[in-house]
């Protein structure tokens, strides 16, 4: 369950100082001073100019990542959510690589935009279809507890029985400053977690520039990233030409990593504001 205290104190607060949670007594006001983080004009140069993503830990929640792929480079850690003989789920170190190619593709996109990020793979696919939702939830919970700054989720579930727990996890991530970047659906179905306001949801646009992205003034899809005809990293050290929101999502995740490397104190809502201000349809591409 969500704890009643601020779980990720701002860097300006000392670790041992207890911060107010449910109400703010007058004598505590001085203790929650917030430095002004966003400038009057938020430009791309301010947001990520000169950033390589160094120091930012990005988690790819997917089918695994192929090790030693030239377009992916070093993978800090690979884990998988596995079911034991009693049916319990565990997160264990994983040597399977990528069972499909998709996770490798997403990792390669993030790496192409933010070359110095630390990549971690959480494999939540490949253990059979049944129970896929439970495995995804377990992998996501692990990623949040590990405190990755960005989690790429090019996947979704339509099962309503998972919605409540998924929603709780998404909100938990939001308050822990774990940014969930999730693929939207281009089909007429209800699916999650991309519909939640606490995540960054991504659809596709058709342009070839990886840094072109749009803010959508009519959500639930909030941003559009590059998602058409991409040469992405695939199994066997090669590439494949792919299309889909799954590949637009790591573009936005990569841009978020660039921003967070330069401005590590940003909260998810501040980061969403920066994305909005720097979107190509908000003059950000100028």
């Amino acid at each position, binding site marked *: 369950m969500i704890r009643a205290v601020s779980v990720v104190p701002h860097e300006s607060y000392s670790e041992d100082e207890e911060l107010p949670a449910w109400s703010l007594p007058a004598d505590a006001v001085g203790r929650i001073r917030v430095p002004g983080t966003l400038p009057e004009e938020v430009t791309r140069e301010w947001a990520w100019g000169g950033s390589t993503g160094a120091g930012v830990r990005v988690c790819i929640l997917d*089918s695994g990542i192929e090790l030693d792929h030239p377009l992916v480079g070093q993978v800090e850690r690979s884990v998988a959510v596995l079911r034991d003989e009693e049916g319990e789920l565990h997160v264990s170190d994983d040597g399977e690589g990528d*069972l*499909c*190619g*998709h996770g490798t593709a997403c990792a390669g996109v993030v790496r192409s935009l933010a070359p110095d990020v630390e990549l971690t793979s959480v494999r939540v*696919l*490949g*253990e*059979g*279809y*049944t129970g*896929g939702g439970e495995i995804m939830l377990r992998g996501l919970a692990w990623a949040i507890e590990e405190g990755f700054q960005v989690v790429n989720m*090019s*996947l*979704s*579930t*339509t*099962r*309503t029985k998972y919605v409540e727990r998924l929603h709780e996890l998404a909100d938990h991530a939001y308050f822990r400053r774990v940014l969930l970047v999730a*693929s939207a*659906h*281009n*089909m*007429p*179905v*209800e*699916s999650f977690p991309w519909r939640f306001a606490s995540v960054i949801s991504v659809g*596709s*646009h*058709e342009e070839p520039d990886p840094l072109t992205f749009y803010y959508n003034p009519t959500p639930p899809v909030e941003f559009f990233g590059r*998602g*058409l*005809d991409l040469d992405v990293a*695939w*199994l*066997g050290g*090669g*590439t*494949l*030409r*792919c*299309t*889909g*929101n*799954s590949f637009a999502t790591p573009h936005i995740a990569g841009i978020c990593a660039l921003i967070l490397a330069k401005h590590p104190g940003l909260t998810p809502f501040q980061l969403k504001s920066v994305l909005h201000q720097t979107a190509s349809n908000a003059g950000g591409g100028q």
Partner: protein
Amino acid sequence: MSDLEAAVAAGVLGADEAHRALLQATVEVARAIFRAKAASVFLLDEETDELVFEAVAGEGEGELIGMRFPAGNGMAGWVLTTRQPLVVDDLHSDTRWSRSQAESTGYVPKSMMSVPLLVEERALGVLSVLDRSTEVRLTLSEVDLLGLFANQAAIALDLLQRARRAREALAGEGRLAPLAKIAARLEEGERETAFELLQVLEKLLRQTG
């Protein structure tokens, strides 16, 4: 809908074939619209965690129906589990995938569009379009169009599954088999009376239950 209601509504016998024809028509239109070499629908068998070829138009038509492969890995499995459509070109460069594809189906496509078949919150299977025409440049509208087709195929697949479940319930050792036998022996006029009797029994059950 109860199995008996589904059975009656579907006309029981013959419905399976009619729904299979509807599914076949859907893959044929999908193939024609994308001017593709093949289009197919895979049904998820949740008990064995496998995907089964349920309808095929074009390459492999008549040979692949009933063929099974694990749902947990590969691109179709990924589409099913993540609920995300996927378009992949230059498939030949994925040699591992190409080899397994050639071994199982005898046909290795260059490109594949795959989309999950969703009815309400359930994922029933996957629609795949192989080797679409390269004359038409892919845009996001084509991906959306594929999503619309998937919706139609999902409804057809859902109907097929319902009819099958109804038939299984009515056939052989199925729990409704005695009813089917009685209904089959009755003349048409008597059948109506039998259904009325069933309705009265159902009402009685509702009142006691």
